[in-house]
């Protein structure tokens, strides 16, 4: 109790110290807490499912010549059956996401339908609130829905036994609800609002037994990781027996492996890196706050020397003093943690809005924050309190009481504080550099030349909805083209941010031998390049007037003779042509037929800025493109008005099919830019707070140090030092560690940012300006932080300063 009283009085007496110390720690703890929640959320996907650690996902990897290795977590439809024929003990299940339309009361509503094997919920143990999911899924017309979906279609009445008409791929089936699942939390990777039996006869496509197709997700269950890895080791032999025989996959180009279900959410290395980085930001910000505590505690040690001496005179042992100071650290950290928790609660809605997250602090339960927070408080108190406790408790009572001077830890104490300031500012400057680079890269991605005009362009995604036949599709396109404001309409099996089918053909230059180069096949409709605003580099574009562009020929004819192709710049290089002009008129062969290159366009970056632009061979197809997207170019309308006009045009032709469209800018943002933009914002918040906490510490140090040096400054001024010279001395002294911090920060930031930018194919250069700018900013901020204190002391009348004790 006396220790707490002593702490309270010490804090109440030195309010500035209390404010800086507790405030800095609270901010550090709040930042750490929020980023800890973020990291736990991102790395905790699927852990809500019982026995999730036993589930593994089959993934396939292509290593195609001339193309970066590509891994995806899918298999062909029938692989599980083939696996189970070879390994009868194997337990597995499958999940395939389908687009379905619920027809109810003249309304058509688009829904995601999870089509799964009947045992799906034996493995993915989502709890049911009503009915039996396994029995329901054994019936081809059984439907499992979530509580949310049940409420959406049946209100407060029970959904069990009720029927929903679902249109899938153009056919409408009556599905009867047999089970209702509890609503699924956000952190589940494979989820849908409704589930039906994965019936091959209903949903199987022509690639069901086509090795290498990425049709659905296959899950396998193993007792433990050792068993999973042992099974994985048998996959090459399994592929030898089954996969390569078909001829479309080659040994050495196609592999399969297993990935834990819990590793699915952070699938790409870029995602994992950013989560690690944000976790590091949280830890380092906390470290900066801890350094503040140590610095301020030792800097003001002199103020408490007399108390320590008196306690020792009165019989206190060093051990009891260490206990007292550690107790004080614990109490201070606990107060700071409570304030930090409150700050985190207040900040979370803003953080969630900026970072696109749904983080929440839960206090009890397995993911409750109380236990981690208690451990955190104990840890910080120990780390932050130990050194000051030993310094403070080490003062000899005789020397302290006899001296008029207060011990300040001597030169070694000053050196340690300077070293710690170097550490703090090294972290802060590295953060500042990283923030600059990340914001610039995010801006670059938003404004970069993608090879086409991204404004004034809509993608109609619902054109590929099953059940829309060719004549209807043609009628839809005519109707869209006639909508007010539309200046062009085209179709293709790709769109910015979307790709319905990805097929590669191995091409070689006609008459040349050697390895084939994989070009992505993109079927394009009329006016494709004009609608997108692509730039022709050489030759010409497809033209309906040229019969040999094959656009007007039938499917059977196109299969016999190779079509003319337009290729992109990357394909020119990949195929080994010296220049676009050199490629013009040349023939390339896909193993069966020759195609003539009639034109070269600049690269169209339709995919993530992280991925390299692939070599593409565009073909012209005005007959029927598989799974097409429509692209609509418009002018003189805003996106909202245009969207409404396109929907009206759509409904005139197919009123029963839900319309789905997005602006290209929105589509690219949602698919590729959003995550990076949101995470950059989270990083920026963390970095700004880290710098702020560093400055709080520097301000505190400056306050204590200048107070200690008032008399010295008086002497210097008496000896003729001007105000400017004193300012230079004081600010210079605090700037030295900040400048030294650059030596640590620059290489760290350089390596980290090289790696981060390395994750983007379309990236900015790592300019020295980021480094110089961040360092200048740090020096300016540090100077401004110290300036107030230094100015006050430097301006004081020397006579008054000399009276100061």
């Amino acid at each position, binding site marked *: 109790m006396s220790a707490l009283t002593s702490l309270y009085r010490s804090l109440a007496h030195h309010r500035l110290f209390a404010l800086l110390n507790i405030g800095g720690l609270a901010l550090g703890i709040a930042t750490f807490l929020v980023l800890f929640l973020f990291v736990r959320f991102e790395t905790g996907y699927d852990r809500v499912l019982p026995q999730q650690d036993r589930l593994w996902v089959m993934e396939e990897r292509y290593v195609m010549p001339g193309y970066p290795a590509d891994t995806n977590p899918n298999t062909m439809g029938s692989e599980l059956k083939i696996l189970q024929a070879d390994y009868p003990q194997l337990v597995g299940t499958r999940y395939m996401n389908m687009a379905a339309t619920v027809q109810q009361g003249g309304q058509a509503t688009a829904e995601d339908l999870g089509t799964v094997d009947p045992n799906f919920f034996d493995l993915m143990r989502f709890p049911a609130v009503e009915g039996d999911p396994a029995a329901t899924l054994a019936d081809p017309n059984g439907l499992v829905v979530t509580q949310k979906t049940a409420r959406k279609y049946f209100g407060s009445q029970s959904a069990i036994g009720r029927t929903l008409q679902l249109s899938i791929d153009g056919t409408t089936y009556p599905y009867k609800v047999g089970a209702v699942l509890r609503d699924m939390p956000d952190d589940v990777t494979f989820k849908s609002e409704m589930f039906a039996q994965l019936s091959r006869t209903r949903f199987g496509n022509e690639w069901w037994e086509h090795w290498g197709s990425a049709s659905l997700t296959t899950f396998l269950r193993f007792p433990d990781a050792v068993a999973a890895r042992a099974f994985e080791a048998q996959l090459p032999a399994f592929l030898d027996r089954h996969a390569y025989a078909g001829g479309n996959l080659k040994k050495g180009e196609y592999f399969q492996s297993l990935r834990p279900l819990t590793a699915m959410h952070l699938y790409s290395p870029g995602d994992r890196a950013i989560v690690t980085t944000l976790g590091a930001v949280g830890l380092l910000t906390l470290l900066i706050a801890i350094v503040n505590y140590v610095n301020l505690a030792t800097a003001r040690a002199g103020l408490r020397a007399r108390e320590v001496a008196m306690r020792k005179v009165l019989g206190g042992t060093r051990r009891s003093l260490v206990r007292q100071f550690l107790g004080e650290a614990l109490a201070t950290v606990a107060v700071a943690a409570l304030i930090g928790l409150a700050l985190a609660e207040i900040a979370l809605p803003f953080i969630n809005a900026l970072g696109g997250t749904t983080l929440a602090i839960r206090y009890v339960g397995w993911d409750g924050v109380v236990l981690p927070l208690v451990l955190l408080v104990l840890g910080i108190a120990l780390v932050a309190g130990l050194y000051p406790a030993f310094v403070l408790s080490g003062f000899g009572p005789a020397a302290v009481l006899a*001296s008029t*001077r207060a011990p300040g830890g001597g*030169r070694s104490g000053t050196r340690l504080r300077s070293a710690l300031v170097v550490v703090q500012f090294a972290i802060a400057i590295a953060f500042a550099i990283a923030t600059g680079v990340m914001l610039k890269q995010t801006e670059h991605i938003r404004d970069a030349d993608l090879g086409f005009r991204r404004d004034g362009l809509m993608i109609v995604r619902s054109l590929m909805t099953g059940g829309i036949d060719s004549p209807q599709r043609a009628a839809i396109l005519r109707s869209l083209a006639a909508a007010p404001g539309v200046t062009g309409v085209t179709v293709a099996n790709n769109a910015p941010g979307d790709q319905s089918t990805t097929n590669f053909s191995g091409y070689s230059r006609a008459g040349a031998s050697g390895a084939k180069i994989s070009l992505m096949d993109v079927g394009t409709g009329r006016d494709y390049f004009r609608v997108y605003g692509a730039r022709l580099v050489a030759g010409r574009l497809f033209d309906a007037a040229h019969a040999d562009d094959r656009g007007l020929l039938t499917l059977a004819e196109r299969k016999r003779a190779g079509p003319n192709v337009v290729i992109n710049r990357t394909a020119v290089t990949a195929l080994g042509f010296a220049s676009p002009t050199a490629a013009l008129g040349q023939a390339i062969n896909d193993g069966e037929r020759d195609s003539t290159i009639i034109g070269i366009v600049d690269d169209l970056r339709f995919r993530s800025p992280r991925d390299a632009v692939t070599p593409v061979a565009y073909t012209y197809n005005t007959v029927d493109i598989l799974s097409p997207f429509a692209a609509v170019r418009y002018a003189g309308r805003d996106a909202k008005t245009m969207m409404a006009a396109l929907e009206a045009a759509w409904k005139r032709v197919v009123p029963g099919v839900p319309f789905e469209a997005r602006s290209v800018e929105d589509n690219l943002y949602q698919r590729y830019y959003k995550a990076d933009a949101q995470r950059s914002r989270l990083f920026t918040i963390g970095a700004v707070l880290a710098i702020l906490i560093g400055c709080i510490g520097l301000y505190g140090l400056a306050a204590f140090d200048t107070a200690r040096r008032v*008399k*010295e400054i*008086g*002497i*210097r*001024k*008496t*000896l*003729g*030092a*001007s*105000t*400017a*010279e004193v300012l230079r001395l004081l600010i210079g002294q605090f700037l030295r560690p900040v400048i030294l911090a650059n030596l640590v920060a620059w290489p760290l930031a350089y390596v980290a940012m090289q790696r981060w930018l390395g994750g983007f194919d379309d990236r900015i250069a790592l300019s020295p300006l980021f480094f110089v700018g961040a360092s200048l900013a740090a020096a300016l901020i540090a100077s401004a932080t110290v300036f107030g204190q230094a100015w006050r002391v430097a301006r004081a*009348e*020397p*006579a*008054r300063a*000399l009276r100061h004790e």
Partner: protein
Amino acid sequence: MIQLQDLSRTYASDEIETTALNGIDLAVEAGEFVAIMGPSGCGKSTLLNIIGTIDRPTDGRYLFEGADIARAPEAELAKLRRDRLGFVFQSFNLIDELTIAENVALGLAYRTMPAREKKDRVAAAMDRVGIAHRQRHHPHQLSGGQQQRAAIARAIVGEPRLILADEPTGNLDTENGAQVMDILGQLNAEGATIVMVTHSPSHADIAKRTVHMLDGRILSSARRAA
């Protein structure tokens, strides 16, 4: 050399206003050695601080070599202190973190001159007061007399025209006090003007003139009979 005309200094706090100096008229000629005496709180140190430009008068004129510096800008006063004044304090006012040599060098720190010359001058000043053998020590390792001699070395290293000493022997025993007064006497004999605040009549006797103060006013100013 200096002329104070109707000079006053008041200190105002929230509650009271204290008059430390009230209508001081005083002239000090070059080469003089003036002792200022009076009871505690009579304004001796305030007067010395104002002469030393480390405090400012609230009223009146302060002419230094003919120029009124009572309201001169801070930078000008700093230059004056740097080039023409030397200070010696009762409590020495050495900087604990610096060595004796570094403390003495502080007297030249704000002047522009070749490093070699600075070094020579610092060595000469320390020699002069007999503390050269202690140059690498820190102030707290020295006796009071040695610390005060170091402070004198710092005051004279810049060869000032006017040395201001505020009870330079106040914290010293008799023997060390006598040594310090010897040094000040020699400096005056060599041409330095000295203004010294003291409580000791015997040390005041070493000065050529004694000024008596009471309640912020000058009571008398008497020259010592030659």
